[in-house]
């Protein structure tokens, strides 16, 4: 490419030089021919002297026989006796104008020459030969070549440097991200991807970090869930096994112990099957496998069924319930909604003090039925409020009497599967209020 540019440049320059030379030679040959016609050798000599320049341009006039008539460089030319071998002379004597490049007559520099025959009326008067040195031009040209090569080299260097930098600034973060993704894929969620560049790459890194955090929390949730399930299943099974072992070791022969131990086995089995039920419910609701039989149902009927089911427990604790439910019809699966209400009511009773009251109210706004269940128990600490709907979450102060922590998780999933919502609020010492919304019959 650059070679081509240089070559064209060179060729153009030579071409223009040659044209110049030719024009020049034509003009000069005319005037020299005029003088030669008059055989005024003196004038010829002075013209040649005037136009020749010692270092650059040499002018020579030869007669028709090829001997020197005049020269701008007498010093050199004196040494030459035969002019015929000088490039161009012979051709010009034969009447042909010749141009070309040749070494200097007695020097080694490259010169551009032109030899032009001078004729008048078909008579050969002589030959004009002009030569100009190319040395300076060549020197200059070499300098230009070096300059261009240097520029080229520098550009290449800078380009390589820049593209390398660019490539590195792109490829390094991408490589980091790749490694990060591989680690996350293996389940290592602990490290963070740090990329300090203000472009799409660091946005991508932020997203990758967010993804990793999300995966981490899901992973932790899953582990915690499994650990909880394992604990909650192992405990009753273990109680049953140890109790059976005790019966085998002789308790069966002691009537009082035997009855109590059988009772224990019954209760623990019930606890286990309740837990399995809850877990299956939760799993199905979570997976969306539960098909809700949605139909228009009256809210009052579901709520009074729930209260009737809890009557014995409320009497045992001497807890009363006050109901203020508007006549509303909601869209829902009555069995599932009953389960949700039972769980909420179970909590309200469990966490109420004896002789307390529970308030159940329901009203509606434009599209939704709003149901609230309020108790007068110890309430829920503010720090626990955001977490009570999580599976297996029980407040730390709650001791043995509290269950495994699945009740609210199930209730929430049921309500949400209906397209409703459930929230809890509580002021310390003033009990808790659970508020649910359910879609009204349209």
């Amino acid at each position, binding site marked *: 490419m650059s070679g081509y540019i240089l070559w064209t440049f060179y060729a153009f320059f030579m071409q223009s030089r040659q044209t110049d030379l030719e024009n020049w030679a034509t003009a000069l040959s005319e005037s020299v021919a005029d003088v030669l016609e008059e055989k005024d050798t003196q004038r010829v000599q002075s013209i040649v002297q005037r136009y020749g320049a010692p270092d650059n341009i040499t002018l020579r006039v030869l007669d028709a026989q090829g001997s020197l008539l005049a020269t701008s460089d007498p010093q050199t030319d004196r040494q030459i006796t035969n002019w015929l071998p000088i490039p161009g002379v012979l051709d010009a004597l034969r009447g042909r104008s010749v141009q070309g490049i040749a070494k200097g007559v007695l020097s080694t520099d490259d010169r551009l020459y032109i030899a032009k025959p001078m004729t008048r009326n078909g008579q050969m008067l002589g030959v004009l030969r002009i030569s100009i040195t190319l040395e300076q031009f060549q020197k200059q040209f070499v300098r230009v070549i070096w300059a261009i090569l240097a520029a080229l080299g520098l550009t290449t260097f800078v380009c390589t440097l820049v593209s390398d930098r660019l490539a590195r600034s792109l490829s390094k973060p991408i490589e980091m991200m790749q490694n990060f993704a591989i680690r996350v894929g293996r389940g290592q969620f602990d490290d963070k991807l740090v990329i300090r560049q203000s472009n799409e790459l660091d946005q991508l890194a932020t997203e990758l970090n967010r993804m990793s955090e999300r995966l981490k929390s899901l992973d932790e949730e899953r582990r915690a869930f499994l*650990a909880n399930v*394992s*604990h*909650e299943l*192992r*405990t009753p*099974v*273990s*109680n*049953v*096994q*140890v*109790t059976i*072992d*005790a019966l085998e*070791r*002789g*308790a069966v022969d002691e009537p009082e*112990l035997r009855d*109590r*131990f059988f009772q*224990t086995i019954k*209760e*623990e089995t019930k606890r286990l099957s309740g837990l399995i039920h809850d877990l299956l419910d939760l799993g199905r609701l979570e997976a969306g496998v539960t098909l809700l039989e949605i139909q228009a149902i009256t809210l009052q009927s579901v709520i009074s069924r729930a209260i009737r089911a809890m009557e014995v427990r409320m009497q045992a604790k001497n807890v009363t319930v006050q109901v203020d439910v508007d006549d509303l019809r909601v869209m829902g699966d009555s069995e599932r909604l009953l389960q949700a209400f039972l769980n909420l009511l179970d909590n309200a009773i469990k966490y109420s003090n004896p002789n307390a009251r529970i308030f159940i109210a329901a009203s509606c706004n434009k599209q939704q039925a709003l149901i609230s269940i309020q108790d007068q128990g110890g309430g829920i600490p503010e720090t626990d409020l955001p977490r009570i709907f999580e599976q297996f979450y029980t407040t*730390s102060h709650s*001791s*043995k009497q509290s269950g495994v922590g699945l009740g609210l998780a199930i209730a929430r999933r049921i309500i949400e599967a209906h397209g409703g919502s459930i929230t809890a609020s509580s002021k310390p010492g003033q009990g808790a209020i659970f508020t649910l919304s359910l879609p009204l019959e349209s």
Partner: protein
Amino acid sequence: MPHVLLVDDEAPLCESLAYSLKKEGYEVTTASDGHSAIKQFHKQAPNVILLDLMMPEVDGMEVCWRIRAFSNVPILMLTAKDQDVDKVRGLEAGADDYVTKPFNTRELLARIKAVLRRHQGESA
């Protein structure tokens, strides 16, 4: 007669296991939470402790730490957690052995004997 301190918040387990232990000839004291476990430890000076890991408030791990601060009585952890991390943590807390629920009473008795024997060998 070796004295066993049985600590578990599951009342049914305490009662049944205490029966089997007594049948085997051990003297048994039970505790249903961490605080009373430490209290009973001081009062009874048992020869071996069966300690449930998961209890509300002061859990088994903490009881283990506290007792280890001044005594090298053999401690056998009972737990319904089955993760290896918990096993390691239990042993690090200074437990001598570790039994996962549900367990077989016969197996538990064998382990109690083993830790007692080991302990006597060390102190002799």
